[in-house]
């Protein structure tokens, strides 16, 4: 157990260092600080100074964790910081649910379950780190530490565009989930777009009083009927490769509208 705990301070410190440097150095982060929950809770003018303050706290805790000799206070400091993260996330999710958390860089997504899971994981690692000491590092501990790093990265919505979006794009390219299953079906919208561009529709449009009422296909033509102030306008639209000029229209006198 202690052997596993030996690497925890390094995992936490690396993560905190990264978070602090993102907050201190990223220009994009500073320009979008107004969209974080910090800005909404404490005012936009205080967002950047507060982000810097949090970054300094993260740097300090990372320094304590990395600097020898290790003591139980290192892990305790990290646990206090992680508890603070959790409290901030819970409060901002309740008070300003639309804001992003501003944890690891600028992005527009509001606080979600992954942010909580990440802070909770950091807290768990910190509690483990309390028991860390100068023990020899076992291979198993390295594997576990690597898994923890991967979990922390996967739980960071800020990094989605680097791995999640490209992997989904690749999967979509391979499986083609939106491939056309029934190519013989011609959506009505395709015919309507042709209709709207036709001279026949332009001359009749001022008469129309309703949206499309009915449509049916016959002999390579699609017929569409509209109400036209007590009359009926009927259009014929070519189904396959027609030009807008091929659309025809007729205005038909029908018995007055009956109540259904």
């Amino acid at each position, binding site marked *: 157990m202690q052997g596993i705990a030996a690497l925890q301070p390094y995992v936490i410190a690396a993560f905190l260092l990264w978070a602090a440097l993102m907050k201190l150095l990223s220009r994009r982060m500073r320009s979008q600080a107004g969209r974080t929950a910090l800005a909404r809770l404490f005012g936009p003018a205080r967002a950047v100074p507060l982000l810097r303050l949090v970054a300094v706290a993260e740097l300090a805790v990372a320094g304590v964790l990395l600097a020898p000799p290790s003591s139980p206070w290192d892990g305790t400091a990290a646990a206090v910081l992680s508890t603070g993260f959790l409290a901030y996330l819970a409060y901002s999710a309740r008070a300003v649910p639309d804001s992003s958390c501003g944890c690891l860089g600028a992005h527009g997504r509001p606080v979600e379950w992954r942010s909580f899971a990440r802070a909770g994981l950091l807290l768990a690692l910190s509690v483990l780190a309390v028991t860390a000491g100068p023990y020899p590092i076992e291979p198993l501990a390295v594997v576990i530490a690597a898994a923890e790093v991967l979990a922390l990265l996967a739980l960071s919505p800020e990094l989605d565009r680097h791995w999640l979006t490209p992997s989904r794009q690749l999967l979509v390219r391979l499986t083609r*989930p939106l491939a056309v299953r029934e190519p013989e079906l011609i959506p009505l919208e*395709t015919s309507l777009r042709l209709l709207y561009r036709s001279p026949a529709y332009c001359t009749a449009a001022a008469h129309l009083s309703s949206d499309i009422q009915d449509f049916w296909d016959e002999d390579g033509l699609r017929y569409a009927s509209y109400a036209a102030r007590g009359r009926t306008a009927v259009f014929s639209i070519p189904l396959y490769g027609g030009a807008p000029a091929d659309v025809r229209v007729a205005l038909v006198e029908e018995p007055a509208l*009956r109540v*259904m």
Partner: protein
Amino acid sequence: MTTRRQMLKSALLGSGATVVAATAMGSLGPEAAFAAAPDQPEPGVLDPDFAEGRIRSIKDNTLMVLGSNMVFHQIRVVDGTSLWKLGPVGFDQARPGDGLYARGVRMPDGMLAAESVWLNIVNIKGHVRNITNEKIHLDHNGKDVLCHVVPGRSVAVHSDAPPSADLSLLRVGQHVQIMGAWRPDTNEVDIATVFSPH
């Protein structure tokens, strides 16, 4: 219905005594385009010929609709009314709980005689978070909206190109605008048109 369709079809061919004007008889004439349009409402004044809200109940041919501003509307649907619910549908497709926009003529008794009714129509913008089997997972201002592709109905419009039933050019991560029909009380939408900027 078939006989009415036959009658309308024959009108297009220029036969039948009830035809008022047709392409087969020459143009409708340029004056048709400038025919008296309905009066436009004053800016800032509620349009009396328009209603929106959700259907509370349906009685015979009348929809009882509660507007989002808590104004109650009675909307009468007649033979000539067009109903849209992902496409033209019959009156039997209107259900309590459906959201609607309606346009028509306000009767003296306050009832709206509808010319067009659009049920559950929505227009949303967002980012494509993921694409799975016949579904687009949309991120709309941080909220997830599940958009269903309906074969034979859904089309994609890329830039200014004509609409295509092939939606497979859409990419994860891109920005889109989706017009479709909301499934009441869910975060799900059936897609009519996906507009893609490229």
